[in-house]
């Protein structure tokens, strides 16, 4: 919870914007994909009971207790959680959804300063949301472009402190693919509408099941790299063997997204820690990783275990504790 007795240093502007019509991202299927990825990533970090001995832990190393408390309370959360373990799953979920829908999400590190006789002292830190598409980085400097009616006294172009901007994006290898995926899903949706209009107007003389198969094939092809299961739409079309391999690809994708987000968050923490003269490090132990995915893939190819047993590791509830 933000302490209103402090002086909050925030450079960026925030204004309410009406939601565009239709589902977020412009396509229902894209929105479902983003929801699935964010839920999956959240499940990696979510845990209600602490310390049940499964070795899953999140901690901040190399920092004082005071800084750890400041960093733990810096994440935006609905309930105002001041514990990292509680706030982290929700934060990662929100970030993943934004990355898939709009490629990037930016936060500004807001500084809560207290005036004392020694001058101003940093008491709290908050990550404040920057409206998407309004930030630009030029030659190492960051700027926010504010609409004129919202600009106020500070003007439409606001210069930001670069170190205070935390930018979250997908891993580099996925960026181009996700952009293409957004375009392709949009294209499929438009063609789907035309197909359904044809059915309604009784114009379409094509075999329904064959067109349906082609439609599913288009979805399967454009999502094959990340292995999204399209919420069961492809279950009947794929062999369970291939569906298993696709499922493992999906887990690998979610794990890579999670790792990238936590890396960016760790960078932001390090920059905040530098103000205190410390070098904090965000560490997560015992979470499912790429190694687990590769192991399950090898098991699938060998046929050593039933598929459900191989997936068990990815589906069990995760508990997070703070060191």
């Amino acid at each position, binding site marked *: 919870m933000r302490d209103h007795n402090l002086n909050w240093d925030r450079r960026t502007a925030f204004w309410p914007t009406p939601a565009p019509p239709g589902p977020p991202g412009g396509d229902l299927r894209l929105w479902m994909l983003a929801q699935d990825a964010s839920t999956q990533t959240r499940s990696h970090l979510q845990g209600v009971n602490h310390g049940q001995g499964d070795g899953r832990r999140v901690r901040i190393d190399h920092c004082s207790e005071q800084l750890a408390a400041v960093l733990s309370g810096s994440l935006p959360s609905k309930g105002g959680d001041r514990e990292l373990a509680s706030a982290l799953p929700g934060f990662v979920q929100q970030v993943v959804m934004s990355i898939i829908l709009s490629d990037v999400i930016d936060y500004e590190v807001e500084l809560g300063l207290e005036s004392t006789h020694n001058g101003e002292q940093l008491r709290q830190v908050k990550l404040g949301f920057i409206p998407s598409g309004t930030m630009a980085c030029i030659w190492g400097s960051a700027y926010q472009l504010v609409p004129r009616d919202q600009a106020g006294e500070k003007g439409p172009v606001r210069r930001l402190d670069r170190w205070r901007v935390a930018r979250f994006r997908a891993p580099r290898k996925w960026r181009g693919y996700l952009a293409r995926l957004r*375009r392709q899903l949009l294209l499929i949706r438009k063609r789907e509408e035309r197909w359904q209009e044809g059915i309604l107007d009784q114009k379409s003389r094509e075999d329904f099941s064959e067109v349906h198969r082609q439609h599913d*094939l288009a979805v*399967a*092809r454009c999502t094959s790299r990340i292995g999204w299961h399209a919420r069961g739409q492809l279950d009947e*079309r794929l062999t369970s063997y291939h569906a298993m391999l696709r499922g493992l690809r999906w887990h690998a994708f979610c794990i890579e997204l999670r790792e990238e987000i936590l890396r960016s968050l760790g960078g932001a923490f390090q920059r905040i820690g530098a103000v205190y003269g410390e070098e904090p490090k965000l560490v997560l132990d015992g979470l499912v990783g790429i190694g687990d995915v590769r192991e399950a893939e090898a098991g699938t190819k060998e*046929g050593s275990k039933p598929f459900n047993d191989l997936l068990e590791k990815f589906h069990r509830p995760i508990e997070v504790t703070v060191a």
Partner: protein
Amino acid sequence: MKAPSAEDLLGGRRDSRPWLMRPLSAACSLGRAVYRGIIYATSCLGISGFILRRSSLAWALLRAARKTRLWFSHRQYKTENQLASARIGGLASIGIVRLSTGPLLLAVAVAFTLTLPQPWLNEQLARVAIHSAWEDKPTDGTYESALTTVAAAAAGLLALFFATVGVIVSTSYVRATTDVRLLIFNEVLNRRYLRLNAHLATVATLGLVLYEFQGVASTALLVYVGIVATICLVGFFPVGIRVFGLFDPSKLIREPIGRIAREISRVRAGHRRSGDPSFQNHARSTAVRQLRVIHDLARLALDEERTTNSSVLSLGGAIHRLARRYASLQQAIPSESRWFPRRPHYANWQASDSSQTQVALATGTMQQPASKPYRGFIHDDLRRITSDTLEALLKGGDAPDAATLLLEVSRTATTLASAQDQAEALALTQATQDVVVEWLLNSELTNLPTEAAVSVVDVQCVASLAPILDCSKSLCAVEPQAWVAVEHQLRDPTGVRLYEAGHPREVLIALERVHSQLRFDETSDPLARAETWYLRHVALLAYTAHLRCTVEGVIRAVDANFVVPARLLVEAEAWLPAAFWLLRSIEACAKAGDQVDKLEAAHSGLKPLCRFEVDWIQLDVPRTRLTEARDSVHVLLGSVVNHLSPSDAGEALPDITGDIRAKIGEHIVTSLAGPDPLDLGSFTKLYLAYHQATFAVVLKLLLTTLPQGEAVLATDALRDLLELSGVALLYSELDQTDYGQIVKNTWDADIAKLSDKTAFIKLLYDTIDSRLSGPIFGAGPMQRQHWIQLFVGSLAERGVDVLAYETFHFGGKTHTTHSSDAIESIRTSHQLMFTEPSDYFAALYLTGIEPAEDLNPPATVQECIDSMRRAAERRPEDEEATDA
């Protein structure tokens, strides 16, 4: 099933190809790689068929293609319509010209080809100064008159032949449908003969016309016309005789059956156009039309009053040949082919597809039902025709002909079962069985010839065995390891190899699904390739499910084909047919047990191939149901045996009473020896039936003086009864059950009815004493030996020390004593008792009843009594030894 070769199993097919095939194989691999590359590239670019086909350009192209196709279809339809209107006497005169275009063009071509080159040919021959027959032109008068005569004769033959066919149609087929009448005109040889005559008349007429215009007399044309005219004239007589054969409807069945067979061949996987749904639809509609014609023909043949049923039987034979051909080929037809008619299948709203839900919501309509293929449509029609034919034959009193038709049914059922279509085989045999049972129930058996009824029942029962026997037999003919070696079949892009393997339909459906999924996998992700173990695992699961269904089908067939109809006949008091049906039921139960064992062995062969644990067959329930069926059959048999009169077992029929007694006796002893003995009620019924059936023979022996041969047989039957009673008494002593009391009560009741009881007991003693007087290796003595072996085996199984006699002398080894003196007194060696169960029966029962008080028992009986007494005296010492 087609067994894969060792190369298939070892995956060495590619290497074993001849060197000539290697370049072709390489080219195929290259083509496949290019195809995958294109798919991968388009996948990377995000292009797919779904997107392309819905673009504006594709939409326009599609519309243009559709319009073009529609225009051509319309033209074709119009032409066919005009021809049809001309054929049925429409007013379009041009239609007549169109109909005759083909033959006319042929005639013109022949006439011109043979006439016009004649002057040039003559000139050429004159130039080279060769004199030939071609130069000797026929004289003008001869040429003209010859052609005129031929034209007139051909026209006359045409008219005469047409009139003959017309007479047949208007007399024999006056009540037939139009399709049937058209068959006579469309009969292949008739049609060709009529065309040949028309062609001859046309060519001769054209020759005359050309002669009138050009004055050229062609020798070649004259020779051609002469040859064809000779053929027409000579052929008129045999073809005419053949035409009169068409009064018999069975001669017409070749055409519809041939057309159905052709359509079946065309819709098989691998045929050029078998993948085209419209073509499959067309093939089905043609087959359905021809099936109606076959049904009409069958009705026509049945309605006609004839002295013999050869026509009907011929029709039946042809129909079943078609059914067998279809049964052997139907596994090569894809399961989703439009060849199979569709039936609506309504899915749950929540479980249905989202696209369909959206369309239904947007249009405010109900969801479109999914259509499921109905694969039994040919067999349904053929079954109906068979039932009608069989019913008509039986109602007409032609039981031998009905039996002949049932033999065809049996062969068809065997083919169906061998092709793993157990359900269809069961349906076919049940259809004929319903007809036969209804005939037996409604006929007055007194008027029915016994041999005829028995032969019909017997052949029907043989047919009913097919779903029990042949399905598993053909399945187990191939090693289970070969069933699941499907990777080559599934990786074949066309899928043809899948249909050549002859998988059962349920398995085929599962494999087709995987094949389609594999194609989807490869198209959506070019790098996807399922491992061999997975493909085999899928096949294994499908075959496990099929084995489960087959076991279930075997048990269902025993119940539906044997137990139920036999019970109906017993309830209707049709004793003799019921007896034959029940005897075949015992055979069916035995065969079913064997087949279940075979399927279990095959199932065990599958288990080592399984990667993960799956649901295996639980055979306890089927075995229990089979045992129940066997028990109920024997109980029914017991209720039948005493209603069979001695005249039933004549020269023309087997000794049914003896057969039944032997089977009941065997069942009683086997059940007593088994782990699940009969319940008291079933034992009472069976023993009573056996006892009464044998006692009737004994009474006959007492009251009349029989010839030597029959007296020996009757004594042997009485010895069987004594032996069985003894075995039952000993089992009662062994297991401490009430069977012995039932045996004693039955004997008490029967002896009480006799006037001279002492004489009867003496007869029994004599029978026991003269055990070596009969044929030692006859059926009765051998069966009795078998009972003794079973009993001794039971003694060992239930903990009685059968070697106690020897060990008592040699080792002084202690053993557990049995509470019964009789069991303790039994001495055995090499699975045989020193004294027989009949001796024990006499010792335990006969010597104790009042009429036997003054009679001395035989020596063997006395030995049993002494032995039991010694066992009783020995008992306290034994017990002390055991305590020590």
